[in-house]
């Protein structure tokens, strides 16, 4: 390969970096200007001091965690069974798991409010609790494509069938096999999928808003209509939150069972040792 100084490459990378960074810098800068004539974290303070902020945040966090738990309970046994016993079902299950990417959330929730609305057989939206359940279900549906892929990849990297046979030949029951052998081995994949689910549902707007839940997404929109500087502060916080979720997701997705949580420390020392 010729090692020409890649001026064009550098230029393109700089333009790309500018496109990515300028909005963040601008937003951060804007978020600091709440007090006239000085830069301060007043906008952030004002956000944190609001009771609404804390209440919507905890509502969204609880709903998201419930969605994660429900998602795991639905996806893990399914992925396991499909790999182990029903490989013929695989195309069907995969298609179903990808359907939420094809059906926009606004369409999905439209169906929900009609089917589970006031005059239906299962009127979930009649009660607060029922609506909350429907919200969590909506979050689960949105996260299924990612959750299924993360967990299925995790199972692909270990030999599920042989592990199960090995556990059963040693006398373990099926439930015990899942709990003691399979689950720990795909734990990282599950956690990885969980962080993605968390980042999707925390700020979800469409389903949340149409189900009229007091959660973070609708709160954000309201803030955008009522205030000038707080939205920027919230945008920066949301970006940092997304970043943390993605880094943790990536970390767990590539982590092997038994590996330390911060693999790059280990890798670096190994490389040094080699040299």
């Amino acid at each position, binding site marked *: 390969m010729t090692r020409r100084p890649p001026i064009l490459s550098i230029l393109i990378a700089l333009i790309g970096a500018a496109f990515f960074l300028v909005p963040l810098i601008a937003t951060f800068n*804007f978020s600091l200007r709440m007090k006239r004539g000085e830069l301060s974290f007043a906008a952030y303070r004002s956000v944190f001091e609001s009771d609404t902020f804390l209440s919507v945040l905890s509502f969204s966090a609880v709903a998201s965690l419930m969605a994660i738990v429900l998602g795991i309970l639905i996806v893990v046994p399914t992925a396991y069974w499909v790999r182990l016993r029903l490989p013929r079902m695989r195309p069907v299950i995969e298609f179903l798991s*990808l359907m939420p990417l094809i059906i926009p959330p606004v369409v999905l929730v439209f169906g929900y409010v009609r089917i589970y609305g006031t005059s239906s057989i299962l009127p979930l939206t009649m009660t607060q609790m029922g609506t909350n359940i429907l919200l969590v279900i909506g979050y689960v549906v949105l996260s299924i494509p990612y959750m299924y892929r993360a967990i299925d990849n995790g199972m692909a990297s270990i030999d599920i069938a042989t592990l199960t046979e090995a556990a059963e030949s040693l006398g373990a029951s099926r439930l015990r096999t899942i709990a003691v052998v399979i689950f720990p081995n795909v734990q990282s994949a599950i956690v990885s999928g969980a962080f993605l689910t968390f980042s999707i549902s925390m700020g979800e707007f469409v389903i949340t808003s149409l189900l009229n839940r007091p959660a973070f997404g609708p709160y954000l929109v309201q803030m955008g209509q009522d205030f000038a500087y707080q939205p920027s502060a919230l945008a920066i916080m949301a970006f940092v939150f997304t970043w943390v979720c993605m880094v943790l997701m990536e970390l767990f997705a590539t982590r092997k069972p038994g590996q330390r949580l911060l693999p790059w420390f280990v890798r670096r020392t190994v490389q040094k040792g080699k040299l």
Partner: protein
Amino acid sequence: MPFLLFALLFLILPVLYLVNGAFQTPDGRYSLETMLSLSAPEIASSYLLSIQLSLASAAMGTVFGLVLGYTLLLGGLPGWVRRAFMTFSGVASNFAGVPLAFAFIATLGRLGLVTLVLRDIFGINIYAAGFTLFSFWGLALTYLYFQLPLMVLMITPALEGLRPEWREAAESLGASRKQYLTRVALPLLAPSVLGCFLLLFANAFGTLATIYALTSANFPVVPIVLFQQIRGNVLYNPNLGYALAVGMILIMGLTNTLYFILRRRAERWQK
């Protein structure tokens, strides 16, 4: 199996319900009337606007993402630059919705930093020149913030699949760099690039929150119209809402089907 029951209740039934409703008139008669009323001027123009906006943002995302991805992977840049962009792309492609709208208001809104810097330092008043963030191109540019990194992430495997031997083989047969690009690399990337374009299109087509927060629901793309319909029945015909939803499913289904066909084709070559 719990998954099948779950999918039946919360994926398939809602869709079937909407499809069923879309082929009925408000008085319960099965008819194509409702679906055909999608061609009414205000509905058709919503679809047109949605498709145009999705096409524009997907086209920009595809072209710029391909150029950036190619530069990062094959442009001879140091590894840390590539890794930094990849990590950032992972975050930015998930940074959509309401916060993204806020960020662009702070950047290119009437009082946004870039707007002010351009006006006060460079003497270019983009708002006086007719630009507003809440217009078609303002929205397309905002979408680009998640479309571009998504393209970079999705095209990376295809770019990595371009084996260096192919370039060397072409060179040894006398091909210039340009001839290699136009005759080997681009044809090889074409199915992947088209596939990514379709996914970006679908991604933009379904986007609601960003546009809602940016324009306070005053930009009549299909998701916004449907959202308003669910909120307050602005169409005075619930079945038209069903038809609107089914229209969206059809467009999304078509793009995704095409995408899978193209991906098949691309995978065949990557062996």
